[in-house]
């Protein structure tokens, strides 16, 4: 894996990848919830449905954590990329102005 340094473009690339991961997780969660939203006729026994629903609810919340954490990470990286971009622009401006 290539090393990504602290350039604005590098951090922005990381941000995009992480944001894409959050979107992937959202899609996986939605598809899984949709495919498991009617367990009663499959399982048949009421006690099994109750146990299944408790498991499904816990894992739905678990996916929410994944999505929340990964989204926050993506947003944090995007904000940092913007900061680095400003710093790079300022540095470039300064470098250009030295010669004038």
């Amino acid at each position, binding site marked *: 894996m290539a090393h990504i340094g602290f350039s604005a473009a590098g951090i922005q690339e990381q941000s995009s990848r992480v944001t894409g991961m959050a979107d992937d997780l959202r899609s996986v969660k939605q598809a899984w919830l949709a495919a498991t939203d009617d367990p009663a006729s499959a399982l*048949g026994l009421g006690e099994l449905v109750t*146990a299944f629903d408790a*498991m499904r609810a816990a894992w739905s919340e*678990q996916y929410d*954590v*994944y999505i929340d954490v990964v989204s926050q990470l993506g947003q*944090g990286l995007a904000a940092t990329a913007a900061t680095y971009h400003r710093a790079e622009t300022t540095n470039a401006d300064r470098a250009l102005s030295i010669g004038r």
Partner: protein
Amino acid sequence: MASTAYDQISTIINRLEQLASLIDFADPVALAEAIEQVIAEIADPLPGNVGQLMALASAFSRAARDTSPVGTGLQAMSGQKLPGVWQGDAELTASAAVSDTSDLVGQTAPAFGAAASAIDAYADTLSNLENRRRDLSQQLYSASHDGPDIDIFGFNMPLDPMAWSGWLSSVRNLIFGSIDLYHDLQYAGDTLAGQFADVRSKAVAGAGLKAGMTADTVLLLATATINGTSLLGPGQLARLEKLMAAMSPADQARLAAVLRAAKSPLEQAYVLKALAAGHSLSQVITFAGEIRGQSSSWLTNQLSLAGTAGVLSYNGTPLVQSTQTECGSASIVAARVLTDPIFAYSLTTGPDGQSLTGSQFAARVAEVDAQTHDATNKIWPQSLGTSPFGVASGMNSGAADGAKYGVQWVDDTDSANAYPALQHAISSVDAGHPVPVLLAPTLDGMAHGTSLHYVLITGHSSGQLSIYDPEGGTISQIPDSDFLNGTMQAIDFGAPHVNAVIVPGR
């Protein structure tokens, strides 16, 4: 389609058992009516749908497969240099946050794989049971029409006694076969419900998010483990969620400040575990100050007695019962250690805050064992050990984590009687509650002086139960099936029969 309650299955079993009891006494006409009733009882297909079950299993397999690349991607990222972008209570670095998230996401595939396997196995079982039901139904129908002729003069005697006897035996087998069929359905259902509870127990992060914790705090709670077991189980997280939601904004701010002051995620997890154990915020803040800045090895040794894998011990000294009659007391003490880090700290630390030596720890444990024995045996003679009711009372006095423990007796000679209680014990462990188990010796063992013995179930994962034995302080792994059949043969605890489990109320 509406689901069927277990009670309906039990009702069918009861009716079939009543009909079976008539076989040897009923006259032929009554017997014919009884057979008609049995046919009616088992006429409906078993609840559940094999095709839909397989689709349900596929949904879990697919989600596991599609989630894995995210975990792999995050894992790859965590090895790279990342800028510090993360701010929150735990103030994790970006790399640590990514690594923890990767670990967390990585827990999905095995859990969902286990769910898919369990559902697939249940689908197979249901399919086999449904085939058996159809066969039994057909055979009973045939028997009702192909029975020996009956004397037309009203004496209700068979024309051929031999044929009558054979036919009666065949009918008896078919009715008992029907009873077995519904028992097997109950057993399969209980097994699947237990497997769902096991998978559910692996998802511990959501409770923290609901309690309003920041994402990084949720991460640290979800990934804080000691020897592979979550530091806070689902029951403790649920309790923490309620406690934090009920806090005033001022107390929430005090707690947030304490968490910020902690020097490591593990330290923060212990602070939150102390709160979940039921201590006041002031006690928790004092405790947080006393453990601040300690290393991970110090924390696990001093607060979980988990410095050595496979043994509950402190500085190499195992947590063991102090006398022959204190296995019950020692099990309660071990349960408190596992659920309450402030209690564990009181066993390993002197009043001056100095860590105790191994021998000082052993003396302190002996003192606490004796106090526990006194408190749980106010009437029951101490020379007989602790009664199960005494153990339940002891659990409720400090190791209950908000639950209320009671005694469930187990008749391990009757699986229909034993299985629900044993399955409930495992579900309780899945929810993060340790479960004391009373074991009884064989008759031969009794004759040789072996007595009843308590052990403590401390964990359950991937079909294996972790069992603490107060006699040696060891934590051993046994297959949960070995426990569910009412015997503990895989490891010799001296007394193999499960006699009672002390469990939180349903």
